[in-house]
């Protein structure tokens, strides 16, 4: 049995050629920041070395920061985490894509079970996943309007329950 440190070190070595940077946010975690072009080779390196399994794909909306003059500092981005687990170790491949060009390659040819995560990413965050085998709706209702992505920060539900204030 390898120790947690050895398992993480192995992943770090495998991913090193593709990483823009990496850090250890917690003792059992390794975060590796990648450019979109290196996503497939990085996933391939983990899969071919049989390093753990893909646990989930997490999308995070990073809207543009608003400066004082009402102008935005940079354009909004969607950050996507591909989290792989091996024992207690968790490696997250982190890729950022801008709203204007929110496109990622599908990792389904390497990991078929990623399809559900990729469909969720498309519906909830509006990231186009190129080459994913199934683009039909998984979660949202058939009547849900096109181009509305509920997990983006800019999406505000029409009526919010605010802690019982509304006659709760």
């Amino acid at each position: 049995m390898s120790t947690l440190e050895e398992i993480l070190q192995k992943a770090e070595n495998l991913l090193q050629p593709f990483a823009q940077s990496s850090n250890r946010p917690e003792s059992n975690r390794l975060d590796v920041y990648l450019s979109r072009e290196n996503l497939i080779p990085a996933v391939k390196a983990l899969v071919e070395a049989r390093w753990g399994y893909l646990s989930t794909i997490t999308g995070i909306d990073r809207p543009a920061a608003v400066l004082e003059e009402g102008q935005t500092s940079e354009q909004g981005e969607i950050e996507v985490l591909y989290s792989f687990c091996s024992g207690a170790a968790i490696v997250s491949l982190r890729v950022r894509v801008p709203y204007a060009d929110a496109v990622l390659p599908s990792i389904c040819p390497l990991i078929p079970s990623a399809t559900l995560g990729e469909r969720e990413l498309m519906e909830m965050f509006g990231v186009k996943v190129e080459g994913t085998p199934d683009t039909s709706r998984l979660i949202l209702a058939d009547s849900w309007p096109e181009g509305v992505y509920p997990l983006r920060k800019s999406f505000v539900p029409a009526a919010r329950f605010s802690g019982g204030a509304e006659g709760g």
Partner: protein
Amino acid sequence: MTFEQHGENRFVVPIGPQHPALKEPGHFEFVVDGEIVTGASVRLGYVHRGIEKGAEDRTWTQNLYLMERICGICSHIHATAFVQGVEKLAGVEAPPRARAIREIFAELERIHSHMLWLGVAAHEGGFDALFMYSWRDREVVMDMLEMLSGNRVHYSANLIGGVKYDLTPEMTDKIREGLNYLEERLAHYLDVVNNDETFIGRTRGIGTMTREQAQLLGAVGPTARASNFAYDVRVDAPYAAYAEFPVEMVVAQEGDLHARFVVRILETMESIRVLRRIFENMPESELVTRVPRRIPAGETISRVEAPRGELFYFIASGGGEKPERVKVRTPSLCNWGTVITLAVGHKLADMPMILAGIDPCFSCNDRLVMVKRNRQDPQVWTWADLRNYGIEYYR
């Protein structure tokens, strides 16, 4: 998951969304050639409630209650995954006794969940006597949970930093008594599952998944362990009190429906064993530790072993009153992929049991949609509307 490979002359049998096998909504389309299934697809989302979005609009404490309501079967484990993540962000650890109590609730929950499943899966196969007996016996563990917390479904045992309920020696005695009875019953069910000829006829060699398939398809929990894909968060990355009171991982080689029954029954017996160990060596400490008012900015990943497999929480804090992002990946979502693949080559009549075989939980997957008023104007329900509707309905 597409039909492309099946050409023009396909015959599609739609099943669901109402009552596809379990009494929860999911829509399946099975492509058949005579009686044999040649392709399958799934459509979820019928009970999406917008919980991940809703989490961003609620305080850390409100979210504890919201997360517990993701699922009515494994409610405690959702709250546990959430509080453990928040505690990591806050840099605190729950006291030893609180962690042991979390494990007690989690294992009682696993017993009730596996027994619920045993009944449902038996029912899908037409073994209604087994269904009724296992649900009758499940009441024993439901009574234990009610005795501990006052609740049968949402026990609300967790607080950020600890637990609410303590166990008295009288309570543990009562639970021990119940566990003795359940152990006897489970031994009987194991005997039925292994030796009843008609039962074996419907389970052995059905829906077989190899270890490689389980890994490739991303199976988790008992579904994966029945295919000898040995991982269990309780063992691999112990949380709560699993380091002090470890469980033995239960695996099987066969990978068929029968193995899924055996693994779950043996796991339930293992839960009983570990509960007895905790009662013998219950740590003494306070129940709650002090937690800072503000949860510092940061990100964490919290993983736990729900009855159905690995449950994954990604929690991001911006340092404010509310989380920036809470991502919940439930075990059932992982296991759907296996059903779609395993269905191929089997008789349509085997589908309900194969579906039930992964112990799917729809409300776990389905968390993200708005409830709409079924009227001319598709206006969204407000909290007050829902409340009034509820009052009117039961008047």
